[in-house]
């Protein structure tokens, strides 16, 4: 009988536990370090973008380029993903572009919107639905003077106890007319994951 009583108590506890089955959701700080797993994460994205922008705006030739209210026109080309992970490099370029534009020293041309802009211009000028006095003139866009591009490479090593991941992000700025590389910046990140000996 005693066993029966214990069994009932245990079963009751298990039923209560089963009730609260939803995970706990809460908001966190977007800039807090994230160490859920060893792969490329939000903290890496932020540290790369932050470091690159700081280096770029404080480089003396770039400072003289952007002094006296001059704002050179830049376009961002692809960042090549040369790592062993599926990383969306466009999100890195978006963050860098945002910070640079908000610093007020550069102007950007968005190459990803070219197709949509062209469609809109064709609609405005050729569809006959838009008042000619209120359309945007064709062929009046500004050409970029500089190009920003780069690559993200990684070296991954693993043995039976440790996994070591090293990222190197390189960003380059090239003058489209002269072909000279005006600036190059590099950011390195190393992450290590060690196996625990004991866990639940």
């Amino acid at each position, binding site marked *: 009988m005693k066993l029966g009583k214990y069994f009932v108590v245990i079963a009751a506890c298990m039923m209560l536990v089963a009730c609260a089955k939803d995970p706990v959701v809460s908001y966190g700080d977007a800039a807090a370090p994230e160490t859920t797993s060893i792969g490329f994460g939000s903290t890496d994205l932020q540290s790369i973008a932050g470091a690159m922008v700081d280096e770029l705006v404080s480089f003396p030739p770039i400072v003289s380029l952007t002094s006296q209210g001059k704002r050179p026109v830049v376009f961002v080309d692809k960042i090549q*993903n040369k790592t062993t992970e599926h990383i969306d490099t466009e999100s890195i370029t978006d963050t860098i572009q945002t910070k640079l534009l908000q610093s007020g020293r550069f102007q950007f041309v968005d190459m990803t919107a070219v197709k949509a802009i062209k469609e809109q211009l064709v609609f405005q000028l050729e569809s006959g639905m838009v008042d000619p006095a209120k359309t945007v003139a064709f062929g009046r866009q500004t050409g970029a003077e500089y190009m920003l591009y780069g690559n993200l490479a990684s070296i991954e090593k693993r043995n039976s106890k440790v996994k070591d991941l090293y990222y190197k992000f390189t960003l380059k700025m090239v003058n489209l007319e002269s072909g000279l590389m005006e600036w190059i910046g590099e950011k390195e990140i190393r992450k290590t994951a060690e*196996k625990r000996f004991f866990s639940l």
Partner: protein
Amino acid sequence: MVAIKHSGILVLLALLSGCAGTSIFQPYPFQAERYKQDAFLTTHQANSGAASSIFSDDELDGPDALLHLLERARVLQLKGNYQQSTQLFAQAIKRFEDADLEATLRLSGLAEQGSSLLLNDNSRAYRGAPYERLFVHLYQAMNYLAQDNKDAAAVEFRKLALEQKILLEQYEAEVAQAESRLMSERIDLNALSSQLQDPNSQLLSELKSSLQNAYAFYLSAVFWEAQGDLNRARIDYQKVMELRPDLSFIQDDIARVSGSSGPLHWAGSESNKGKGRVVIFYEQGFVAAREEARLAFPVGEGRLFSMALPAYAPSHIGSTKSLMLRDENREPIATSEPILNVSALAYKHYQEQIPMLLLRQALRAVAKHRLQEVSQDKMGLAGLFAANVFSLLSERADLRSWLTLPQGVQVLQFSLSQGEHELELVTDERIDPLKIQVQSGQTLVIRVFEANNQIRVQPFRL
């Protein structure tokens, strides 16, 4: 009475924990048959109910979850369902990567070890073999190529290179021993011709090719060359050469990408102007499955000792057939050559597992023996009989491995002029038409999979 209750509850828990559709009582190769058949069903046949419910979600929770993911992903890829196959392979990759960083001793793992002591090894979660992991990345790369996503395919090829390197490092000691034997007995280290005849170098090649995947290296090399990265292509071609020095075209490939007057892309050489490159990988059969070797004998006082171990039949390493390609005028263009023997990879992995397998078998024998003793003490002959029957029925060998992998792979390559070509694939048993569109300066990879007298042809543009 208390002891009976304890052992009875233990047995009951063990049985309850693992029953749902796993390989604890049903051997895995039997379950895998339906995947092998589904690989060749057309969508119409599948929808008409021939195998409409072969994919059940319960299996993704049990100990064989990884295995079912792999089988399904492979079958979906063969049927051309690349997007779903990508998702399933991605889940399998995540499981492999999580397992890399798992703690050495896990409390939750103890329950599974405990039940495997009372039942059999099939109640332990399937962890996947290193050679299977290589195939996951290779097939995932092919999935991305089929969806025209070269960047993602490049990531998978890089991951493949990393895994191949790690695999070789794990067997460092063995490979180093074979290499030192080779070095100490060879006089001329640079002559390529001697490499083919030297028995030590053959042993080294064989050892490496039972670990590493030459098919993956060759496809990588072709991919990197098509992308223009000739350095990476050269490294991968050289690795293929180490594993398969007898491939007739490998030396030409290496010479081309590391040319003395500078590395040359496929389309750059004079003879290939205006032509496209075609590489055909001929995957055949299904990899050998393990078989059970059972042993049961009485050990005095009415107790029964039973043992079941997995083994490969002596004929497991079969040979592969070759494929000949003929053009519109029935003229032979090229014949395929063997590049990979998957059963050899599986066998090597099995050999590595034998010591732990035997250890677990011994522990299991002790546990079941104790169960029989306790049952006899407390319930007399009936208890002993029940324990004997349980011991006999629950003793099943762990026959799990990825069974829809091909048994072997052969490769052939050639260049064709631009345009549409109607060719013929000829083997000993059948002739199949092959219609391809070749573009100048471009590489086309075709995967031909043949098993159970049926064939599937899939093109991948690089």
